[in-house]
């Protein structure tokens, strides 16, 4: 028990006075608005309605989403690589949410790391399909004939089934009217709500316009990514890429990371780099390592985009009756953005249902989840900086390759480098856990050995045990 101090008594008293003055709990008939029907908005709504049902609370939820995720092409898509991480797949399963075959375009079994010094296939730790490759909209425009269901539509149908109203409206502003958030519609009209969950992502103008609300809503830092779809035949994609996501560690100036993700008769190319422009994309796509991994005859689709990536945390992703979730608030650095949308969405819903919707409630019950992500991202930054140094030197690239190849060849009990690369690329573990792995004496010892071997001129790389694709 914490000691009773004058401050704690004063705090409790002021809490009491405040809660006496204003009621910040959701009650029967409370109205909640969710701005944005992407994963954050849908997961928030899912848990809000499930928890409300569990305690017999009768609330109304309106999700404002101008996009229809039933369209193919950019109009129906929340631009993203479409990888659902191992940890999210497992969490969804434990929550009773099963991703159907119509949504999952490929169940991923392995990651293949490509470098100029060679390739290594890293198998899923339990040799099963634990990662989902999917589309956020109904696929590329060229694939309107292909039968598939988008992830975002699947989630939206799920929350509709729980009673949420989907309102196809663009929100143009959020104001404060008589201590309640007021949502403005494009036609000048609007409505007051008891709680607004901002789930508009990071690509919306809206998130830069929240300054009018009381509180500190400084938007998060961003950078641009690049996504492009290519079409080939299912057979050719299966032959070249198999059930693996292909990632690239290349020494190209400004290049940070890229992945090629097979999805039925399409492949998605995702790229992240500094000041990403057409020149960098062109250099990457024409790199010999990339060319030999590309399905022959694959043609680029009109579907290509440069969406923003949330790079930093919003300082205070909540206020009285307003909470920011997913990319609008706080997300994981570079990886598992959908997983972060799940975590922040659920934490915000839990706080709203069981504790209240004041800034204080969110600070006490929502912020800890965000803080965990923020602190983990700090470690992530160190990990990515180290990775950038390692990928830029041929010696360290050779050492990484050698160590991972040896582990994959021997089915080692503790495959240190493979686990690190697997977690780094799949986003399946917190960065802190990955960092801890690099401090393991076994990791350091084997890395030193591999570095030594890489320094010996003419020493051949380990032959891969089998071809994955």
């Amino acid at each position, binding site marked *: 028990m914490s000691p009773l101090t004058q401050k704690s008594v004063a705090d409790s008293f002021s809490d009491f006075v405040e809660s006496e003055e204003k009621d910040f709990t959701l009650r029967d008939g409370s109205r909640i608005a969710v701005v944005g029907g992407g994963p954050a908005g849908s997961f928030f709504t899912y*848990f809000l309605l499930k*928890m409300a049902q569990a305690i017999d609370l009768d609330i109304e939820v309106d999700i404002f989403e101008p996009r229809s995720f039933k369209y193919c092409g950019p109009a129906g898509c929340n631009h993203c690589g479409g990888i659902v991480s191992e940890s999210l797949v*497992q*969490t969804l*399963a*434990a929550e009773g949410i*099963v991703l159907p075959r119509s949504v*999952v375009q490929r169940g991923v079994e392995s990651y293949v790391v490509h470098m100029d010094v060679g390739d290594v296939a890293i198998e899923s730790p339990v040799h*099963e399909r634990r990662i989902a490759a999917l589309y956020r909209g109904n696929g590329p425009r060229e694939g309107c004939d292909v039968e598939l269901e988008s992830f975002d539509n699947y989630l939206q149908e799920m929350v509709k089934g729980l009673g949420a109203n989907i309102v196809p409206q663009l929100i143009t502003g959020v104001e404060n009217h008589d201590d309640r958030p007021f949502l403005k519609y494009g036609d000048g009209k609007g409505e007051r709500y008891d709680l607004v969950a901002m789930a508009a992502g990071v690509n919306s103008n809206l998130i830069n316009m929240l300054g009018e609300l009381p509180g500190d809503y400084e938007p998060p830092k961003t950078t641009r990514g690049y996504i492009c779809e290519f079409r080939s035949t299912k057979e050719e994609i299966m032959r070249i890429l198999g059930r693996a996501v292909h990632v690239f560690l290349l020494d190209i100036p400004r290049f940070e990371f890229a992945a090629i993700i097979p999805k039925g008769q399409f492949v998605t190319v995702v790229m992240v780099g500094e000041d990403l422009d057409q020149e960098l994309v062109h250099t990457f796509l024409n790199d010999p390592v990339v060319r030999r991994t590309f399905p022959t005859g694959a043609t680029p689709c009109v579907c290509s985009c440069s969406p923003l990536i949330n790079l930093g945390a919003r300082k205070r992703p909540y206020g009285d009756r307003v909470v920011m979730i997913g990319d609008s608030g706080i997300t994981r650095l570079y990886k598992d953005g959908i997983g972060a949308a799940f975590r922040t969405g659920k934490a915000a819903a839990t706080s709203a249902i069981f504790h209240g919707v004041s800034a204080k409630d969110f600070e006490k019950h929502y912020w800890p989840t965000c803080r965990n992500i923020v602190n983990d991202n700090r470690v992530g930054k160190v990990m990515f900086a180290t990775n950038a140094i390692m990928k830029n030197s041929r010696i360290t690239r050779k050492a990484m390759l050698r160590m991972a190849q040896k582990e994959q060849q021997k089915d080692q009990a503790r495959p240190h480098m493979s686990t690190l690369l697997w977690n780094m690329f799949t986003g399946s573990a917190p960065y802190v856990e990955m960092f801890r792995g690099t401090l393991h004496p076994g990791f350091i010892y084997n890395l030193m050995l591999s570095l030594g071997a890489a320094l010996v001129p003419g020493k051949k790389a380990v032959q891969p045990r089998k071809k994955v694709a």
Partner: protein
Amino acid sequence: MVGGALGKVYSDREIIIKQGETGDSMYVVQGGRVEVLQDSVKAGEQHLAFLDAGDFFGEMSVFEKEVRSATVRAAGEARVLKIDKKALLTRIREDPLLAVNLLKTMSHRIRKLNEEISRHKKTQL
């Protein structure tokens, strides 16, 4: 073709977990159907239940260190996803409400078991 796209495919009658063996994971059916069986000296092999997509099994080993209390095998082709104990417990520590879904199913199973016992007692009277 069996439903679902994730996890591993088990062929008809293939055993997924075996009664009496130790385990450190639970499983969620993604597609198809699995059968839960229990073997006892008195009654031999008995059918306990069929589980379908979304249902889970093997959850007891996540919470206690006992051996598996039943055998689960595929009833036709089935797709099943394995959930690691360590990963699950780590997530439950961060988000205790994650356990609610498991508790719900477990309480439902206890209720069914109680009904079964009282039915059994009645037939013995």
